[in-house]
């Protein structure tokens, strides 16, 4: 049974990510964020539920839609914003941008611009944890698009073969860019991809933070006990399309409304209020507080100095 504090931690995490992504959208629309930004709004239950099942020194490896994972693992909001808008104090001195955020303090091996690119990194971190005997676990987050990348199969095989402490977490939001995943993917249900390697595999509701937390907790326990990897698929949805500015003409209203009705934030709020754990007014107050914090971090980032091209050649190699 989860405590009220734990449930509120989930709530706070999801609302923070939602508010953060709203600010990123504004920054992008204002021309502040270079390139493309891929928002995590809608998928918060997956990142928050999964990271809440980890110790602070467990590893995660993320993907191009990765702001939510960074926040859920504990990165600082102002430095995240700063990286996304290309400021010197960002996590990568403004060089990485949204798709290349690495944070050693939170054991985050990074967001990644290559579809499937971070899956073997989590696998390697798990190998390293096993060889060093630290008891750490690694979570590999990836999109449904990775179900069709060869690197996933190489990594699943290696992880199963060597019984590595890694949890493969597929966030199935139904689309890869502008194409429905079901239109380009054979082999249903997709969890069979894990089963093919005798990896315990399971599909769960990615719009329910409790379901995610439960599934990932079980997988983490298995990994920590030396029983090897797990393969989890969470059905979820990205409200903002592939990137900010995607008009999403490939979706219809019925689909949008269906997923909005499953939004993980009101779902958890309703549960908390119905269970008399907290009053709606208190949640509203919490929402407002979080928004203030997030906006303050965004403003802080905007005031940070821009990177200096003078040291562009630094850090290609160790000094």
């Amino acid at each position, binding site marked *: 049974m989860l405590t009220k504090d734990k449930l509120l931690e989930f709530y706070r995490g999801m609302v923070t990510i939602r508010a953060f992504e709203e600010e990123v959208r504004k920054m992008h629309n204002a021309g502040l964020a270079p390139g493309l930004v891929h928002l995590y709004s809608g998928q918060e239950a997956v990142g928050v539920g999964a990271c809440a099942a980890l110790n602070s020194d467990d*590893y995660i*490896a993320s993907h191009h839609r990765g702001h939510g994972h960074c926040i859920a693992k504990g990165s600082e909001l102002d430095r995240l914003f700063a990286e996304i808008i290309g400021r010197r104090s*960002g*996590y*990568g*001195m403004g*060089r*990485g941008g949204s798709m*290349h955020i*690495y944070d*050693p303090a939170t054991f985050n*091996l*990074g967001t*990644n*611009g*290559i579809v499937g*690119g971070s*899956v*073997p*990194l*989590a*696998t*390697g*971190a*798990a*190998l*390293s*944890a096993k*060889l*060093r005997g630290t008891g750490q676990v*690694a979570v590999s987050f990836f999109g449904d698009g990775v179900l069709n990348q*060869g*690197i996933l199969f*190489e*990594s699943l*095989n*290696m992880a199963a*073969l*060597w019984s590595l402490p890694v949890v493969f977490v597929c966030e199935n939001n139904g689309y890869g860019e502008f194409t429905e995943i079901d239109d380009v993917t054979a082999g249903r249900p997709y969890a069979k991809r894990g089963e093919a390697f005798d990896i315990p595999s399971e599909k769960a509701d990615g719009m329910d933070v409790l379901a995610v937390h439960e599934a990932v907790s079980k997988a983490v326990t298995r990994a920590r006990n030396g029983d090897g990897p797990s393969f989890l698929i969470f059905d979820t949805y990205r409200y903002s399309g592939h990137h900010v500015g995607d008009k999403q003409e490939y979706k219809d209203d019925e689909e949008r409304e269906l997923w909005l009705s499953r939004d993980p934030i009101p779902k958890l709020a309703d549960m908390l209020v119905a269970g008399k754990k907290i009053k709606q007014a208190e949640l509203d107050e919490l929402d407002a507080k979080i928004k203030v914090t997030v906006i303050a971090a965004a403003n802080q980032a905007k005031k940070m100095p821009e990177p200096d091209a003078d040291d562009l050649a*630094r*850090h*290609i*190699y*160790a000094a």
Partner: protein
Amino acid sequence: MAELTYREAVIEGIAQEMRRDEKVVFLGEDIGKAGGVFKATVGLWDEFGDLRVRDTPISEQAILGAAMGAAMTGLRPIAEIMFSDFLAVCWDIVTNQIAKSRYMTGGQVDLPLVIRTANGGGARFGAQHSQSVENWAMMIPGIKVVAPSTPADVKGLLAAAIRDPDPVIFFEQKSLYATKGEVPDGEHVDEIGKAKVVREGDDVTILALALMVPRALEAAERLQAEAGISASVVDIRSLVPLDTQTILSQVKKTARVVTVEENPRLCGWGAEIASIIAEECFYDLDMPIVRITTPHIPLSSADELEDAMIPSADRIFETVRQEVD
């Protein structure tokens, strides 16, 4: 000094570092129980066990990706890619992941990992197993590129690569594995980024790498004996970092320079060095820069055809004699 083969020097280099640092681990296909397809890892599995010397599935992306994940989290992995041609199968991990991580993270991540790979021709394996691809690696900012020509350099540079905080691709020329040479006794660690003048001469400088070094030396002896031409031979040893100082000082001294490259001609490493020489000491030159390369054609497997393509001592001798005349 002990006489070792090039392949024994690989084994000694890895063993020396694995004994010294328990964080060094070794992954690859057939490297453990089988001792490697080129027998260049024999005995390591027996000494260090299957936790540290791991036979992997035939999964080049996962091998390099896992090595990178391990390097980011406290280990110093050596990953073997059996033939350098197969780097094409996992080039994403090399060029998009490994090479760029230190830079994109603003220097936060060390990637102490070595990719060892058997490079080049001479073994008649055809176009998918004989390429010289060191120039591919040279083009990518963020990795170091080393290609030794002697057993002593294999051991010393491999040890240096394993201790380096940056990712190193270590190209072993596969037809050199059986060659022998003196290797210093005891711990031997060289320095990456230093070329070696392996023959001093006055009339022309021959710049060579890996298998092209012994061929250039053979040609230089004949040039002296048969044409009275005194050639310097520089073993480049490391393309990144490149020892431009040693190269330029030899070129200035001899005022003539020839590169000998096993990689195909277009964008071969010699083109880059020729451009540096042209920029830095054009007015010191008495003759146009000459490049001897494998032609820009996929390699053939038949003996006569492969021999016609990869620069031989004869071709180096003839070309230099004609050009210097």
